[in-house]
C-alpha cells in the first residue's frame, strides 16, 4: 500500500524522539511555513482538510476552532490524558515523536492565536512526560517556543502539565478543571462550553494529541492533500490501536474509510489474524464506551459515519478483538468495573449506578446470578442512559454516565444465552 505515513513517519528510527532526528527528517519546517502565513490561512487549511478530532467525539477541528469566543486571552490545551481502555496510540506518539506533537501544538496555537498553550499528559506516562518535557526544553533552546518565534513576532509559552491518574480528566471540561488545580469534575454544559468559558473562564480549545500530530503534515502538504485521503467526512489517515486476541496487537496507521475491520484484524501487515486461528466472537470498535459488533459486521469500513450508522462509534480508534474462547460476561463486567472505578462521583446515576452494575455483574460471573438480574441490569442501564440506545441519551453531566451501560447492555443483547448459562450453571463456563 502506498498511503503516506502522516503521524508515524519517524517511528522506524530508534532515536525518533530526539531533536536531531526530528530536524533531519524535516522537523519544524512546517512551523516556519505556518508562521509566514496568516493565522486564518492555517485555519482555512485545517478546515479544508476536514480533520476530525482524534480524541473520541470526532468533531471537525476547523469548526471547533471557529467557535472560539473573541477574547484577548485564549488558551490551547492538548489532551494527552489517554486513558480509554485499549487505546495506546497517543502514548506512542508522545513517547516516540514528542517534537511532532510540540510542533503541531505550536502551529495550532498560532492558528487560533492562543496566548498560552498547555500539553496535559497523563501522569502515568512517565517516559512520555520526560520526553515531551525534554522536547519542549529543546524547542525553547531552538527558538521554536517563547518570544518572537523564528523572528515571526509570534510569542507563546508552552507548559507541560502532568495529570495524576483519573480517566475522567480525558473529558475536556474535567481536564480544564484539573488543569486549574481542581478535582476533575466535568463542568455543566451549558454554560461551560470551553470555546466560550474554558480555562480560567477564557475561551479555550482542547485538542487531542493525534489531532495535533497531524498539523505539521497538513501545513506541509496542504489541507486538500489530506482531504484527498479517505472518503466523505472521514479524511486522512488514522491510527488504530488494535488489541485483544489478535496475533500482532499494535498501532496501525491506515487510510480512513478504505479498509475494513476484517482487513485490520487479518492483514499480516496489521493484526495478523486471531490467536490460534479462532473465530472472532465480538469486537469493540471504539473504546470501552462503544457498543459492540458481532462477526457479521467485520466488513464494515473504518469510516466514522459508516460505523455510526451501524450503531456504534470509532471513538478513540481502539479496536478490541475477542475470540470464541472469551467469556462475554466477564469482558462486559471488566468494562463495567472500569467505569465504576473511574466515575468522578458527581452525578448520582453514574456514581451509584456504576457500582451497582459492577456488583451485579460480578455476582453473575461468580455464579450467584438470578434470572431477574438481566432485566434489573437493563433497567439500571436505562436509568443511567434512558433508552439504552446509540447515541445515548444522558442523565448525567458528562458522557461517562451513558458509557457505563454500553458494554453491559450490548453484551446482554448479543449474548443473553451466555448470561443464562452463567445463572443456571452457577458459574462461568469458560473457567
Amino acid at each position, binding site marked *: 500500500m502506498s498511503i503516506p505515513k502522516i503521524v508515524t513517519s519517524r517511528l522506524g528510527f530508534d532515536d525518533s524522539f530526539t531533536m536531531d532526528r526530528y530536524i533531519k527528517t524535516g522537523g519544524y519546517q512546517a512551523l516556519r511555513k505556518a508562521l509566514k502565513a496568516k493565522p486564518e490561512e492555517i485555519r482555512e487549511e485545517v478546515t479544508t482538510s476536514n480533520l476530525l478530532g482524534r480524541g473520541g467525539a470526532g468533531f471537525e477541528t476547523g469548526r471547533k476552532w471557529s467557535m472560539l469566543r473573541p477574547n484577548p486571552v485564549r488558551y490551547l490545551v492538548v489532551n494527552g490524558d489517554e486513558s480509554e481502555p485499549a487505546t495506546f496510540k497517543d502514548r506512542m506518539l508522545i513517547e516516540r515523536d514528542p517534537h511532532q506533537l510540540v510542533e503541531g501544538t505550536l502551529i495550532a496555537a498560532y492558528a487560533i492565536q492562543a496566548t498560552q498553550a498547555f500539553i496535559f499528559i497523563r501522569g502515568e506516562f512517565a517516559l512520555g512526560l520526560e520526553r515531551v518535557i525534554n522536547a519542549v526544553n529543546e524547542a525553547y533552546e531552538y527558538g521554536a517556543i517563547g518570544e518572537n518565534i523564528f523572528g515571526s513576532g509570534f510569542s507563546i509559552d508552552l507548559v507541560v502539565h502532568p495529570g495524576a491518574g483519573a480517566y475522567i480528566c480525558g473529558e475536556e471540561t474535567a481536564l480544564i478543571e484539573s488543569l486549574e488545580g481542581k*478535582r476533575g469534575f466535568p463542568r455543566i454544559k451549558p454554560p461551560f462550553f470551553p470555546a466560550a468559558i474554558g480555562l480560567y473562564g477564557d475561551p479555550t480549545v482542547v485538542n487531542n494529541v493525534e489531532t495535533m500530530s497531524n498539523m505539521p503534515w497538513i501545513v506541509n502538504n496542504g489541507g486538500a492533500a489530506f482531504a484527498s485521503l479517505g472518503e466523505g467526512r472521514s479524511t486522512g489517515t488514522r491510527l488504530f490501536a488494535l488489541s485483544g486476541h489478535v496475533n500482532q496487537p499494535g498501532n496501525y496507521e491506515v487510510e480512513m474509510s478504505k479498509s475494513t475491520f476484517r482487513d485490520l484484524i487479518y492483514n499480516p501487515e496489521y493484526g495478523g489474524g486471531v490467536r490460534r486461528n479462532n473465530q472472532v466472537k465480538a469486537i469493540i470498535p471504539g473504546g470501552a464506551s462503544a457498543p459492540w459488533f458481532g462477526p457479521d459486521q467485520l466488513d464494515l469500513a473504518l469510516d466514522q459515519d459508516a460505523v455510526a450508522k451501524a450503531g456504534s462509534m470509532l471513538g478513540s480508534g481502539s479496536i478490541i478483538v475477542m475470540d470464541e474462547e472469551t467469556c462475554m460476561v466477564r469482558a462486559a463486567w471488566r468494562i463495567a468495573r472500569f467505569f465504576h*472505578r473511574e*466515575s468522578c462521583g*458527581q452525578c*448520582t446515576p453514574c456514581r451509584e449506578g456504576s457500582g*451497582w452494575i459492577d456488583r451485579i455483574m460480578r455476582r453473575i460471573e461468580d455464579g450467584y446470578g438470578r434470572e431477574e438480574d438481566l432485566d434489573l441490569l437493563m433497567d439500571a442501564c*436505562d*436509568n443511567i442512559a*434512558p433508552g439504552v440506545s446509540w447515541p445515548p441519551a444522558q442523565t448525567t*453531566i458528562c458522557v461517562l454516565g451513558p458509557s457505563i451501560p454500553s458494554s453491559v447492555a450490548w453484551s446482554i443483547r448479543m449474548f443473553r444465552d451466555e448470561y443464562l448459562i452463567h445463572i443456571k450453571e452457577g458459574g462461568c463456563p469458560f473457567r
Partner: protein
Amino acid sequence: MSDSSEKFNISIDGIECEANAGELIITACDNAGVHIPRFCYHPRMKPVGMCRMCLVEVSGPRGMSLAPSCYLQVAPGMEIVTDSEKVKKAQDGVLEFLLINHPLDCPVCDKGGECPLQDQTLAYGPGESRFVESKRHWAKPIPLSDLILLDRERCIQCGRCIRFAEEIAGDPMIDFMSRGETIEVNIFEENKFTSYYSGNTVQICPVGALTATPYRFASRPWDLEQVESTCMSCANGCRMVVQSSQDKLIRNLGIDSDPVNQSWLCDKGRFGFTANQSDLRVTVPLASNEEVSWKSAIDFVADAIKQAVDSTGPESVAIIGGSRLTNEDAYCWSKFARSVIGTDSVDAQLGDGLAPELVLGLPKATIDQACKAPLVVLVGPDIREEAPILFLRLKDAATNGQTKLIEVTPNATSLSKYATQSLFHRPGEQHVVISALVSPQELKPPTQGAPIQPVAGVDVDDITLARKLIQENKDAVFIVGRPSMADSEEILTESVSQVVANMSEAKFLTLLRRANTHGALDSGLAPGCLPGRTTLDLGKEHFTKIWGKVPATKGSSCTEILQKASRSELKVLILLGADPIKDFPSKKLALSAINSDTKIVSITAHMNDSAKLSDVVLPATMFGEKAGTTTNFEGRVSSLGKKVTAPGQSWDDWAIAVTLAMRLGGDLGFNSLEDISEEMEKYVPLYRNLKPHIWESSAQKDGIVLPITGESVKPRWIDPIATPGISSLTHHRVALRDSNDNTLELDTGKTSEFQVLRFEPHQGDLKIPTLDAYSLRLMAPRRLYDAGTHDGPASATEELPSILNLNHYDLDRIGASTGDRVKVVSSTGEHVSKVALDDSIAKGTALIWFNLKANGDEIGASDLIGVGELVTDIRLEAI
C-alpha cells in the same frame, strides 16, 4: 441570576405561565407552584447539577429531552414537562441509586421524620428495593469539630455543606475526598471544622449525614414544637424558629428571611439556646446570695429606692443595661425610671457602645441597602466577630454583587480578603484617616515637592485610591462601630461628624454588639433620651402629658453612674441584665463601683460577676421564655416568640418594673404585655401602626424597619428542601394569597407630637496623644465568643488566651518571646502578662482581645484601660 425584568411565556405541564428572563427552570416551576424534587440545589447557592433529582423534560433543538432544571435557564416558549412517565422513571431511578448506599437507619437517624430523602422517596421513589448486595460502609459518626458530627454512610454527596463552607462562609475547611463511589466529605487531618457558621451545614444537609452535638438524639421531629422568633445573640436580628420538646429549648433553625439572614445563622445564635439551660441560671430571688421570697426582695429594692429618693433625690438611683430586654420591657423600665423614680440616669450601654445620637439620629441604611450600594465603607471592627451574618451578607455583596468595599480598621479583618481597599490605621486615629478620605481638600505635601507623609500609618497611595472611590460614590453606606474598647467612643463620633459634614447623601449602619441595644435606645434607655428617638428636651412636654412626670435635667451616662457609685454618691444601682465588671471597658472603675456602698440590684437571667457582688439578685426570663419585639441595628423591629416556661421563679422584666412601681406607690398602668405595646403604639409615633396583629400577618414576618415607610414587603416562598426541619411557615406564598387583611395601612414615620433626634456633626478637635517611641498603643477588639454570660457553652472555636499579642519587632525590642511574662504599665497601674507573637499586628501596637477568660498569667484588656482617656498607651518591661 440576572436582574433583567424581561418576562416571557413558557409552558409548564401544558399550562402557560410567565417567567423572568435568566430564571432557572426550577425557580420558574416553584413560582408556578409546581414542585420539582431536588437535593443538591439550594436557592442561596450556585447550582451544580450533581444529584440529578430535578430532571424534567424540556423542549430543545432536538425535541423533548431530560434535563436538570436546577441549572438550565428558561427560554421564551420553552415547554417543560415535570410529570411525564419519562420524568417519573428518571426520578424513581435516581432515588433508587441514592438509596443503594444509604443506610436504612432512619429510626436512629436524627433527620428521620424531617428528611428530604425520606420525604422525596415516599413521593417520587420506588416502593421497593431491588438492591441485594452489601452497602458501602464507613465508620459511624466522625467528629468534624466539637459541634459537628459526620456520618458518611448517610451522605448523598450533594455537596451542599462543602459549597456552603466555600461559597457562602468563605471557610473551605471541608471538602470532598477521594472519588467515585468512595467519595466522602471530610476535613484535613486535625484541622477541625471550626467555622463560625458550621451549624448551617447541618441545617441544609438533606439527609442525616451532618448532625450537631447539642441536638443529637435529643428529640424527634414529631415531638418538636416551634415558634418564630428573632435571634438575640447579637444585634443583627436574624429570623429563626425556636424549637422545643418537653418544654425545653432544643434547636434553633434559620428562616430564609430575604432582607436579614437569608436562612443562615452563626453558631453562637444557633446553639445559643444552651444558655437557657446553663447551670449559671438564676432561678430564685437572692439577697446577699441567700434565697429569699419575691416579696422580701421587692420590698428590699423598693425601700432602698424610696430611701434614696427621699434622702438624696431621684438622681441617686441609676439604671444600667437594657439590651437583653424586649422593646416592651425597655419601654416599661424607661417609664418606671422617669415617672416613678424620677431619675434620668439610665443607660442601656456600658460605655462600650455608640453615642445615642449616632444610633438614633443618623440617616440609616438597611442591610439590604448596604449590600446593594455601589460602595460600602466599613469603619470599625471585624464584623465577623461582631455581627457574623452581616459579614456573610457583605461578603456576598462584594464577591457576587456590584458592591465595592473599603475598610478603615486598625488591623486586618475577615473582610480584608474581599475588600477593594483596606486602610489599616494606627489605633485611635481613625478620624484622621476618615477626614483625609471625605474632606474636600486633597492631601497636600507639607511643602511643595516634599513627599506626603502617611496618614495615621496609612500609605498615601491607598488613601488616594480610596478617596477617589468615595468621592465618586457620594451615596456610600458607612458601617460604623467601635473597633476597639481601648479607643474612646468620641473618636468614632468625630469620624462620623466628618462624614456627615462632607457627604450629605451618605447613609449609616450603626454596629451594636448586644442584641436589643437599639430597641432600648428607641425606648429612651439612655440619659437625656425619651422613647421614640427623641431627647428629654424635645419630648418632655409630650411625655409629661402621658407619664405625668419626666425628669427636668439630663441624667448620667454609664461611665458617670459608675464614677458616682465609686464615690458613694449613688445610693441604688439597678443592673438590668448588665455585667459592668465584664463589659465596661475599665474593670477598675466597674469593680470599685460595684464594691462601693451603693446598693446593687441585679436583674438577670445568669449569675454573672456583677450579680455575685450584688445585694439583691432578681431572676429574669430570657430569650425563648418571653414574647415581645426586638430591634436590630438597622432599626428593624421583629417579633420574639415565647416557647418554653422560664425556670424557677423568673419573672419578665416588665413585670418586675410594674411590681416595683406599685410597691413605690406608682402605677405604670400595665397589666400585660399587650397593655405596653398598646401604649407604645398610641403615644410613641415611632411605633405608630405597629399593632399586635401585624406580627400575625405573613407579609411582615421579616420584621419592619422603623420608621415605617409604608413600603410593602414581598415575602418569599420558602423551599422546604433547602431548610428541612422547619415545619410549614406562613412565609409560603400560598398563605399570603389567602390573607386579605389590611396590614399594610402603615403610615410614614412622621411625628406630629414632637421632634426627633438628629445627629449634628461636631466641630470637634480631638487631641490624640502622640505615641512615644517607648510605648505601644493598645487595641482591644471583641470576639464573637467571649466570656460574656449570654454565650451558650457550645462554642465552635478554640478558646484564645487573654494575653498581650505583639509583632516580632516589638517582641524583640523588649527581648521577649512567645510565652514569656512581661510587666505591663498603663494608666491603671502595673500588671503582669504573658505575651505572644502575632505578625498581623502593626508595629507599635499591642492587641488583647476584650473580655476573654483570663487565667493565671493572663491579663484582661479591661485591666489596662483607663476611664476618660481617648486611647490607651502601655509600656512593657521585661521581668
